[in-house]
């Protein structure tokens, strides 16, 4: 098996896995980074969202061999102290219910605001469309994205 050198949360991490292993399982099973969640495995729910060079990506459908030198950010590395404006807004607006989808929601929202710091409701809806929250916390997710956009 090839050894992949991955740039994750600013550190080089090595993973000795088959080439087709999705990044999601490299993070969870190999690198002790279980903050990135498994939901559907087929790029439909967004629970596994990470950043690849700052862009939101579904790690369940991204083979490790395709990553190469790209910089990967996971929820564990979004901020050092859990104080990224999106994370703070999530706490302030008391967004989580069960909480399982929220890492993915936060990563999608953070990538959106990086690209478009002041999105409209419509743009927020479009960007967040790929993230399912089975608990139905969508109202607060949307509010929190808006709130974070005033602080970025």
């Amino acid at each position, binding site marked *: 098996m090839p050894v992949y050198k991955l740039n994750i949360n600013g550190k080089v991490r090595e993973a000795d896995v088959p080439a087709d292993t999705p990044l999601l399982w490299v993070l969870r099973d190999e690198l002790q980074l279980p903050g990135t969640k498994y939901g559907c495995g087929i790029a439909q729910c967004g629970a596994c969202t990470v950043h690849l060079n700052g862009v939101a990506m579904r790690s369940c459908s991204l083979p490790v061999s395709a990553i190469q030198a790209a910089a990967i950010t996971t929820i564990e590395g979004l901020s050092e102290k*859990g104080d990224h404006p999106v994370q703070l807004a*999530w*706490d302030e607006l008391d967004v989580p219910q069960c909480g399982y989808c929220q*890492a993915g929601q936060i990563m999608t929202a953070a990538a959106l605001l990086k690209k478009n710091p002041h999105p409209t409701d419509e743009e*927020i809806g479009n960007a967040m469309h790929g993230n399912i929250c089975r*608990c139905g916390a969508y109202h*607060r997710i949307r509010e929190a994205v808006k709130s974070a956009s005033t602080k970025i």
Partner: protein
Amino acid sequence: MNTTHTTSRRNFLKLGSLTTGGLLIGFNWFDNSVKAAVVAGGDAKETLAFNSYLSIATDGTITIYSPNPELGQNIKTSFPMVVAEELEADWTKVKVEQAMLDNKFDRQLTGGSGAVPHSWMRLRKAGATAKYVLIQAAAQQWQVDASACYAENGFVIHRPSGKKLGYGELATAASALTAPADVPLKDRKDFKLIGTAVRNVENKNIITGKPLFGLDFYRDGMAMAMIQRPPAFGTKIKSVDAAAAKASPGIVDVVTFKNNVAVVGNSTWAIMKARKLLKIEYEKDGNIESSEDHDKILKDLLDNDNGKATVQRKDGDVKAAFAGAAKVIEAEYQCPFLVHTPMEPMNFFAHVREDGIELIGPSQTPARAREAVSKMLNVPEDKITLQITRLGGGFGRRLKFDYVVEAAELSGIIKKPVKVMWTKEDEMQGGSYRPAVRYRFKAALDGSGNLVGYQLRGVGINAGNSTREDNFPSGAVDHLLIENVEYVSPITTGAWRAPITNFLAFAEQTFLDEVAMAAGKDPVQFRLDLLAKAKQKPVGAIKYNIDRMVTVIKTAAEKSGWGTKKDVAQGFSVYFSHQSYVAQVCEVVMEKGKPAVKKIYAVSDCGQVINLSGARHQVMGAIVDGYGNAMYGKISFKDGASEQKNYNNYRIIRMKEIPEVEPHFVDNGIDPTGLGEPALPPTGGAVANAIFKATGKRLRNQPFSAEDVFKA
């Protein structure tokens, strides 16, 4: 039992560190009667007599050992609020620890919206008992009268002198005292914390991606496994060729037990790939059913029950009432199977050892899970520990324990610690569905449009009783007959958030709307008239509170400006479930020729709201869930197999599709009742009634999105 007591004592001490002093209040969470809480710190024997504890350590840390699993209903936040209120503590210093499963925790489950109502008085008494002995301890130390002292924000204060001592400093002395059985509780007008909006105590861990969930559990040397279960109901394994799967890299073993083929390996990806290489032949082992068969069976059993219908409730003489009616209205409603599909897939860790079994994972019903594992593997319950992780959603799926038992069975076979994981595909074909049900309603009106006769027959597929015979309008109608027919199928079902009422409420509330229209009455007034009748001349037993229902109806009408809006079509619905009352008004406008659901007002009477932020969130989430599933949710079957396998064809509502939700609460100070479920049942009816108002078309089948009004 002795062994268990010892275990519980040990666990407690491990968690509570009261060996270094402090105060321990023992109380029984699960007795049916709410007994007094007792200071239990001094005497080990007394400690053992309780199943729940409130401890105050010498550094002032306050801990509640709660046996209730957390799955997003936010009890980790609401329980400390209740204790802190009575204890006059800084609530941020009150922590909830998830207690290990203990035989004495008889209500160790989350379901039926029961956690808060069950705990309310117990937690208040525990807090008040602690406050009482802390004040006594301070008074003794200062040699003053206890009545000159009061408690505030973690301190006991001597009013005349202003002297104060922190709870931590007083805890050890207080542990030598006793409290009276009937400690005074606060008057609700003095509540400072209860009823306010407080953020979830787990937010920080959730938003930074901490490993809180069962699927996040990893241990060195642990194997991982996925199980191939029969893809179709009514089939069983005929032969298994596992050679290719076994030879696949990273695979440790492939084992067949019962109808399961488990692929065991050392990484998730390895087992996912290897599982695809299994060659399994299945053979018939029962009825193999498709949705067309179900549609026919449900209709047939409504017409001709072959004597299988059971009478659930009968008042007056329905036959005569219908024979003499001025107008008869009849309608049928049908709902499909649904799947729970919580975001975190089913999973459980099990380690069957020589000396006992260790179980770790998400469960809504750990006590029953352990009992089942004990029976299955013939290991006494006191040799089994079960640690509950945070649940990534439940919706009723984790009330079943099939996924716990199979993990234990597999660990026993392979003699290794193993985490068994499900995929979404496993779950969608995995045999725990909200049952499919069809209802037939009939109403008889007299010459002045009064409802004089009412009939409901429900036919469900493995639904048990598909009716709730004592719910409104029962009690308000002179002649009433409610019957149930159950069809037994190999397709297994389970409790789904607000069981039965999640669909029955839609059917009932839509039918009442139809009847109101036929009677030429306003749907809100029609319901109020019926409730007034039930109040004046009740028929049979009435098992809901008429006044509380009237209040939510009137409040919802007022908040939504019922009947006063020109530019929107409104629909009304009200339902009583899990001891709470919720009325909803839905607003619909036409956009490009199709109805668009814009807003839902919800007025809930769940008694005293504990955490306003959590309560609003539960209501909004339940409405999104109720609306989303009414619009899009459907599991259908072809030759015994579910046709939906994952989110690509099982549609879950997404952000852009949600209506605005405006939650309100009735403030009546009644002891709290459930809120995890009650806001869901009324939603489908409010939506369907508003769509009727907007389009003139009745929605009688779910999912709504498949109905004509939504087609181009």
